[in-house]
């Protein structure tokens, strides 16, 4: 058991480095000079630009730049005036020590900017996950109970359609119907900015209804199909036949034997859903102007704020990797059949 945890944890390490290498390479290969994006004065002199490049470490070979980004440069000196002698000690700690650099556009530590946005994204994501699971599992069980009837067919069709609808478009339609035409719900942001003080629950919910519904759609579609397959598979097992054979009422068989065993894998399979939610959040947060990580990354991409872009990718990926890890570990812990192996 502990061996399994350690192995899974060790497996995550090369993946993490892969993510950092990939995001570094993309930005490295990007055309255009990052320094050119930083407008200090309307007409910076070439010397000033060079000094700026050296200060940011952009004059170094790529490998060293990567090392600086990863492990910081506080163990070396920076040669700002280009005479071959370092003037100042480096002050970056590197992402391994949670320093993701400074945002070019906003001139603030990337870590702060991201940490600030995480609660908003979590609020959307957790709500969407809960709703997606609640509705998805119910629909899946329903489809399995009424296997091969019109109920099953209907749920199947709904889940295929749910996957095929472009989420941002559905968001726009909801905005048109409930925001513009019926004027029932707010169409952007996450709180009423005219009200001061802590946000009331009602206000929070009003702003959440539309984005959460759209975001949970994919999860509903996926979880309902997964649940249906699981339940149908468990119903084929010998122990279900035995349970019926020894005279247990149908209800007991369903709740004590079938559902328990079939919902366990479903319940612990939230890892991949986190990835879908994070990716969905990028678009949905843009549609509803929700101030979360998705919107942060889009804005960073629009303004070519490379440190912020790289930082957001790494943080989102770490969240995703940890989510998958947690979901795998929970599954192993909760299912005695696997635990004892």
């Amino acid at each position: 058991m502990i061996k399994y945890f350690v192995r899974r944890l060790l497996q995550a390490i090369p993946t993490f480095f892969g993510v950092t290498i990939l995001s570094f390479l993309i930005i490295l290969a990007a055309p255009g000079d990052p320094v050119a994006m930083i407008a200090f004065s309307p007409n910076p002199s070439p010397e000033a630009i060079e000094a700026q490049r050296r200060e940011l470490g952009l004059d170094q070979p790529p490998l060293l730049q990567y090392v600086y980004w990863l492990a910081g440069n506080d163990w070396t000196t920076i040669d700002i005036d280009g005479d071959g002698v370092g003037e100042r000690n480096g002050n970056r700690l590197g992402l391994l020590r949670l320093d993701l650099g400074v945002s070019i556009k906003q001139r603030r530590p990337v870590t702060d900017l991201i940490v600030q946005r995480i609660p908003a994204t979590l609020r959307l994501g957790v709500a969407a996950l809960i709703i997606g699971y609640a509705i998805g599992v119910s629909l899946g069980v329903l489809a399995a109970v009424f296997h091969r009837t019109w109920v099953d067919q209907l749920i199947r069709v709904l889940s295929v359609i749910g996957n095929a609808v472009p989420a941002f478009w559905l968001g726009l339609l909801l905005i048109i119907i409930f925001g513009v035409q019926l004027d029932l719900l707010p169409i952007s942001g996450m709180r009423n900015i005219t009200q001061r003080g802590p946000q009331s629950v009602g206000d929070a919910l009003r702003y959440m209804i539309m984005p959460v519904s759209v975001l949970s759609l994919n999860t509903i579609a996926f979880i309902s199909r997964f649940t249906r397959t699981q339940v149908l598979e468990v119903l084929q097992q010998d122990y279900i036949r035995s349970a019926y054979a020894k005279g247990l009422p149908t209800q007991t068989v369903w709740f004590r034997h079938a559902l328990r065993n079939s919902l366990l894998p479903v319940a612990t399979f939230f890892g991949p859903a986190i990835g879908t939610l994070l990716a969905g959040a990028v678009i949905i947060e843009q549609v509803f102007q929700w101030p979360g990580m998705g919107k942060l990354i889009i804005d960073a991409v629009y303004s070519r704020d490379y440190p912020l872009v790289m930082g957001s990718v790494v943080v989102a990926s770490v969240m995703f990797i940890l989510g998958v890890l947690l979901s795998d570990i929970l599954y192993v812990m909760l299912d005695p059949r696997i635990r004892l192996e």
Partner: protein
Amino acid sequence: MTLETKVARLEKAEAQRHSRSFWRDAVGFIRRDRLTVFAIGVLLLLTLVCSLSPIVLERVFALEVNKINVPDKFKLPGEGGFVLGADQLGRDQLLRLIYGGRVSLTIAYLASVMTVTIGVALGLLAGYYGKAVDDLISWGVNTLSAIPPLFLLLIAAAVWEPSTEVLVFMLAALGWVGTSRLVRGEVLSLKERDYVLAARASGASDWRILVIHILPNVFPIVMVTMTIIAGNLILTESGLSYLGMGIQPPTPTWGNMLTDSRSYLVTGVHLIVMPGILIMITVLCFYLVGDGLRDALDPRRYQQ
């Protein structure tokens, strides 16, 4: 009749029976699957209309897709000769939908073929050779699948501002992971089969075994995946273009026709509804065809 011709004839008959057993059977199965046939029909129709009608519209009717006529802006469907209305710059929406479909469908077809090609190639290598090759490819797979989908694409697209061709390449370069994982799994079990052992015993090279004996056996599952991927690509492209990172205007795609839609939620409802419906129908059809193919190509079907 000599013995030789007799043998030849028997072999031919045998070969015919063999070819009927899988692919022809699958086609027969699909033919009876009305939903799948319908979905294939819709896709064919959309593809034909989008790929052929631009030529007719330009040559015969001398219409121009990007003709801007501001006084016509936000004309409703049916108003002033615009069947589906006019957009924020007074361009004909029907025309733009057709042209947009051409771009969106081209991307879906090309990128899905390319995605699957990369995925199959790497999956075959990883599954067949194992060891270091597998480790390296699996590292790539794990890395790419640890980054939430869309993130990398968004960044790559924003950084390089791709043309259609480059975008196709990017979509494939970032999307092959699932196929590769799937093929690798298949190959792991296929390479232990007796016929592979027999081929190897008779001196076949690795290359020959991969291409002649293993590849045809992963083909059915790859076809299913390719269809689903094509549907996903339509969604991805539309999302990317919606965010303004895909194909740049004035070239229309179903996604970028929705880019600025937030600014005309009141006056341009018809401009928001139509592209989305087309995206949804197309994706739905790809998924349905994928489902149909999966049923038709599933060997277990024969047991029922």
